[in-house]
């Protein structure tokens, strides 16, 4: 099975819907150790992406165009920490599909490691710093292992979701090292990182969109 531009647009619509539904929940999580706006950033960012993609000529645009448009519109709608991180993630994902009008199942699976690379390059976080990277990296590592083994896309994505959720949960006992919660030290322990929680939701929406 192959995937073309509309599939990626649909993927972003699915993410946007999930962020809309989880906005207040994510704000509450961010409120515990941050500034309580993460849900707004994610909702507003993906709503802007959805709107920008709706204006795209799906017949003309390549999958890479979809990701680049998404990156730009997310960044400009959001700023914040999430803006540069997700915009870079999307640009890396777009680059990974460069020149392809259709993407293979493997291309789709490898979007997750590509996005993770973007987040890691931009934010320079390390796994264990209690950030969204803890969810993305756990998912990306699992994806790479399964792609290596030639697992089918459905399985890769299902396991990516599980890995992302585990990665998000793993932030609970961590002490924050980066971002707004970095100054909390011990007081950040015992709470999930909001960016990691939303990352798991994003990966879930991607998975369901291709599942």
């Amino acid at each position: 099975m192959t995937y073309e531009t509309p599939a990626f647009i649909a993927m972003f619509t699915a993410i946007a819907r999930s962020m809309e539904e989880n906005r207040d929940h994510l704000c509450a999580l961010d409120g515990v150790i941050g500034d309580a706006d993460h849900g707004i950033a994610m909702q507003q960012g993906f709503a802007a992406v959805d709107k920008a993609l709706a204006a795209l000529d799906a017949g003309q645009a390549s999958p890479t165009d979809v990701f680049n448009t998404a990156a730009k519109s997310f960044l400009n709608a959001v700023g914040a920490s999430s803006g540069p991180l997700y915009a870079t993630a999307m640009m890396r994902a777009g680059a990974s599909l460069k020149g392809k009008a259709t993407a293979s199942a493997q291309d789709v699976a490898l979007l997750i490691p590509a996005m993770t690379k973007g987040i890691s390059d931009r934010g320079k976080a390390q796994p264990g710093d209690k950030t969204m990277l803890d969810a993305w990296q756990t998912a990306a590592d699992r994806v790479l292992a399964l792609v290596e083994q030639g697992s089918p896309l459905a399985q890769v994505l299902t396991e990516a979701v599980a890995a992302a959720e585990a990665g998000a949960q793993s932030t609970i006992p961590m002490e924050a090292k980066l971002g707004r919660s970095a100054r909390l030290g011990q007081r950040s322990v015992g709470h999930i990182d909001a960016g990691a929680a939303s990352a798991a939701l994003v990966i879930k929406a991607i998975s369901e969109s291709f599942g």
Partner: protein
Amino acid sequence: MTLTKKIINSGDDVVDEMVEGLLLAHSGIVTSVPGSPRSIIARHGPRPGKVGMVIGGGSGHEPTFVGFVGKGLADAAAIGNVFASPPPDPILACAVAVNQGAGVLFCYGNYAGDVMNFDMAAEMAEMDGIEVRTVVTTDDVASAPRDQRHKRRGVAGNFFVFKAAGAACDLMLPLDEVVRVANLANDRTYTVGVGLSACSLPQTRRANFHLGDEEMEVGLGIHGEPGIIRQPLQTADAIVDDMLDRIFAEMNPQRGDRVAVLVNSLGSTTLMELYVMNRRVRQRLDALGVEVHATWVGPYCTSLEMAGASVTLMHLDDELTRLIDLPCDCAMFRAG
């Protein structure tokens, strides 16, 4: 849970509508870059050969940042969503608008989001041939240990750092010197804040953290980030004493030293309370033989409607004294 009450039309439109309203109110002092409404520039700031100074950050701290744009202060401010760094585009638009060939200083509070977005804008500006240098403010004493000063947040002390750096630009100092002055100002500026109640974002209208009925949070950030200790509400004098003890431990004031003082409201704490605090600040400084060169009292760096206050001391030397005294002309700030 009941929602907080605000006089807004919609949480999604509030920043754009605020910018519209403020450009109308202060049209003699500020305008926006055509096509980039969240890039606010001074009408009388930029001029040939002058280093351009761009500040900015999330909304919700008014009059920081928009209020500090004007001749003798910042040449431009890029405005983000509430509590969110602006994206690179409006920052870049500011840099382009104020660039006069002498380079541009980016000066803003030290938050991960701001650093990423301003750095992206700096890279883009460099590609356009604009020399950009960055100084992040790190005055919040409570936000990291002394040996990790570079990790600290920038809070109300922005006010002094912007004032000094803006004056340096106004005096036509070259970019290197402006950067030196901004770093000097930041190094000598110390803030501690306390929070008494939460604020609420216009989009959610829910308290962004919870404090007990009798509690205060010492060292909290200007976005409601938790501080270093939560404790029963103290008297004004005890609160100020604790703040100053933390500041003095770092500033190490000597008899005969000179400081500038800012007693700042985080939002709903009244001038009445701030002046009561200022009285104690002065008592403590007098007792040490430290001279107060100038005092500002009021809501200068807010956190929406949060109740709470901060005290900032800038440890003056002759150069900073002169820069702080230089007149400036912005919408919401009185100097001298």
